[in-house]
């Protein structure tokens, strides 16, 4: 269970304060597939960053299984992310000098998993996202869709309970985007909690909930088609 209590985030831009999030209250049940939508500047990426522990709130709390993330220092947050969260970015953020396989092994390396153990696990993950034949290549030699699959496999490396994806289909064509979304659906079906940030509004049939942000506030929170079909918890 993820609980966001009166969550606020303010940025200082020069002498001006910009309120990216204001008093957000949200609970996300374990195993649910939640889409966060909104216009550009609505605060959805900020929300994803806070949930993934990439950034810290200015006010309010983020409780993960009842534990406040504020209690963790930067290194504690990094360890927590490595074990519990998989993060997927719009621009893939793969390391260009590492092969596809090494990119996927990287989170395991930092978690203390040996090369001997990490390698078959990474290959299995690549197989899961359908690009095991690309394992020896460098990311820049792959298509955008393939790179995002690598990023998804990397996010799953330490088998995290939560996946946070920030506009994962933003750089992909429609067909590839659909394939990537199918992967998320499959992971949701396997019990992963997924927070998907997107500007696309026609995802409601695929997810359990659609949370709409506007000017840093929750404008609406509606049940999605997947929940209505009994796919998961809302």
């Amino acid at each position, binding site marked *: 269970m993820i609980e966001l209590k009166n969550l606020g985030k303010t940025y200082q831009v*020069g*002498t001006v304060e910009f309120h990216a999030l204001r008093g957000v209250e949200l609970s996300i049940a374990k195993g649910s597939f939640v889409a966060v939508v909104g216009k550009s500047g609505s605060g959805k990426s900020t929300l994803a*960053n806070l949930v*993934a522990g*990439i*950034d*810290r709130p200015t006010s309010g709390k983020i409780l993960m299984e009842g534990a406040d993330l504020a209690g963790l220092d*930067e*290194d504690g947050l*990094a*360890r927590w*992310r*490595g*074990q519990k969260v998989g*993060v997927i970015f719009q621009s893939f*953020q*793969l*390391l*260009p*000098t*590492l*092969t596809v*396989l*090494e*990119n996927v*092994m*990287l*989170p395991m*390396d*930092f*978690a203390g998993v040996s*090369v001997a153990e990490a*390698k078959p696990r990474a*290959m299995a993950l690549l197989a899961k996202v359908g690009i095991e034949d690309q*394992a*020896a290549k460098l990311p820049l030699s792959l298509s955008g869709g393939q790179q995002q699959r690598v990023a998804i496999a*990397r996010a799953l*490396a*330490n088998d995290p309970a939560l996946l946070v994806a920030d506009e994962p289909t933003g750089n992909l064509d429609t067909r590839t985007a659909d394939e990537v979304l199918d992967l998320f659906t499959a992971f949701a079906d396997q019990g992963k909690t997924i927070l998907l940030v997107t500007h696309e509004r026609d995802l409601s049939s695929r997810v359990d909930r659609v949370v709409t942000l506007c000017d840093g506030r929750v404008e609406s929170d509606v049940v999605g088609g997947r929940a209505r079909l009994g796919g998961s918890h809302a």
Partner: protein
Amino acid sequence: MIDCRFPPRWSKLWRDARLEKERVFLMFVALAVSLLAVATLVGAGKILRREIRTNYLSTHPAMATLEIDRAIDASLVEKVKGFAGVQEAEAHEVVQARVQVGDDWLPLLVFVTDDLSGHRLSRYFPQSGAWPAPTGTLLVERTAMKVLGVQQGQAVQVKFPNTPAQRVPVTGIVHDPGLSPAGQERMGFAYASAATLQALGEDPSLHELRVTFAMDLGSTAQVRERAEVLAQALVDQGVEVHQIRVPPFEYHPHQIQMETVLLIMVSFSVLAFFLSAVLLATTLSAWLSRQTRELAILKTVGASSWQITGLYLAFVAALGLSASVVAWTLGSHAAVAFAGRLAAMLNFAILDASIPASAALIVFLGGVGIPLLVAYIPIRSASRATVREALSDWGAKVAAPGSWISNLPRSLRQILRRPRRLALSLALLGFGGAVFMTALNVRDGWTANLDKVWQTRHYDVEVRFRTAQSDSVLAGLAGVPGVRRVEPWGWSPAGLARPGKIDLVQVWPDKGHGSLSLVAMPVGSALTSFPLMAGRRLSETDTDGSVLNHIAWIQSGKPRLGEAVLVGIDGRILSTRLTGVVEEVGSPAVVYVTPGAFARFRSTQGRSRMIRVVTTATSPVERTEILHRLERAMEGKALPVQMAIPFSELKTAIGDHMTILVNSLLALAGIIAAVGMLGLASVTGMGVLERTREFGVLKTLGATPKVVLGMVMAEVLWIGAISWVLACVAAFPLTWAMDALIGSLGFLAPLPMVIGWVGPVVWLVAVVAISAVSGWIPARRAGKLTIREALAQVG
């Protein structure tokens, strides 16, 4: 199966380093070259310190010498050996003779013992020829052969104190590691038995009782104490001891000189190495800056800041270790060669060329540890950035409109966008420039200090006589053609007296190093102009006043003006009050009194033991001719000359021995300059590369490649100019500190602070040239990229 043997983080580091191979190589070269200098000098220093001691101790130097008024016989020696704590005792003598070299007469110290080959103290070692020398012949110290211009088997013309000049065969060559090189002293060293002295018609009696004491942990103070007890016991038994000589315990006469030269060189090599470490930190900082987003990705997937810190520290350690291996491999050979060169210069042999393990330890610990320490800050800073900060890093800060930065010229604003990087770059270049300038300033200060030897002495030759001679006879020498002025000065070897105690001096057996003289300076004499450090010069009325040169002032415990200074000669004490202190470079300790006070104390009214002569010579050849005429005139008047020292020869001798120091300092300055320039090239190049994307944007907005190039050049020249100003300013305190340290060790007074123009000009030209080239190349490359290519650049 896909090859993947290493943990991905190390693969990333390795491949990133390969992508930056030019800069990694540059960091390696800078570390290795400066560390090579450190390894060479530290290794050579370890060898030299051990070997100078081994060589000196191999001579079994006397710990103390007691000057006895009567001839020392075997029974006295045996009696002294019987005293509690005396380990060894022997009778010696040092005769101050003169030897003819060409048309010149140089001082010749003849060391005399009863048994040339069997004596156990102040030993020397046969190198060739007869051993022991047959009666009636001399052995000559190996460094003196060149000074005397003589070959083994030839004869030299020698004037002993009591006999006319006579030819004495040189039958052998010996090495005496207890002496400084003859060339440096501009005198000859010879060895003869008492029987030889007798055969040559001289007094064969020996007056120096040399002793060693049995002691567990020796020190100069302990030796003094024991020597005083022994001397007093002898006095109580009716043996007249008129002086005790205790040189610094187990210290070669030129050890301080060697230590000073080593200190200068090691200091600058360490500074050069620090500079390399700063270069490494600066380059690494720029590299990490380009890696900001990748570091954020590592943290996103679970890397802690310590894991990232460890990754890059391991890289720095590997770089430092490789540089240390190369530096040590080459440096250990260079150290042996350099030590051999210095040892030859100081007349001792390298008996064991092995370098102690501690030198390797210093090089490896420093080679790895210092880069780690210096690089830690930028690495830690980069690895501690939060993921959001790093992912949203656009490379630079932007000044808020209206702030002071926004009012600066555009090119200056640009370089201020990354204040930390700018600070590191300026620190690297400013420090490099300051050290470079300081090296040249210290060299100039050292030279200027030695120049004082001639600038403060306005005469051509100093002549000392064995006994005081009539001033009117001496004044008559002014009639020698070419002699402009002859000034008689009172002079006598002396010691600092302690009431109720025997005179004690810290002079070495060559009677020059560590000696103290009492000198009567004619009031108002224009022949010297030693600068006053305190108080005032002597006037006619200062009948009990004294002026000390700075060495005598330090030897006598730095008395305050007006305090008592007691000088002892032959058991008598002259009590004076300190009137002033002068800086006298190039002389041992001297206590100056008025001629009246000197004459009363030494009973030499109307007579003097020293003259200082000014000639009309305008060339060295002319001066030599006049000196020869003067020599003949003194011989004609039967004046018993002890030594005549033309200053031109001294200048050449000291100048020759400066060469190694000056060349080494220049080489080190070159290394420092090279490291600084490598740093400048690296920082500038990386700065431009980082902004390739920005240049793409500018070109989209209409900027031409020429405009981009102009922007870059303006920025790099700003950095060069600011760093140059910082270097010039920092060179002042650095020069001051180095001059104070080196001068105090080498001359017991700070070196004169010389701020030369060559260093700043050379550095300015180099900074502008390297800035221009290292900015122009990548800027031109960036300017040639299409907008699409430029915008595709990461970072």
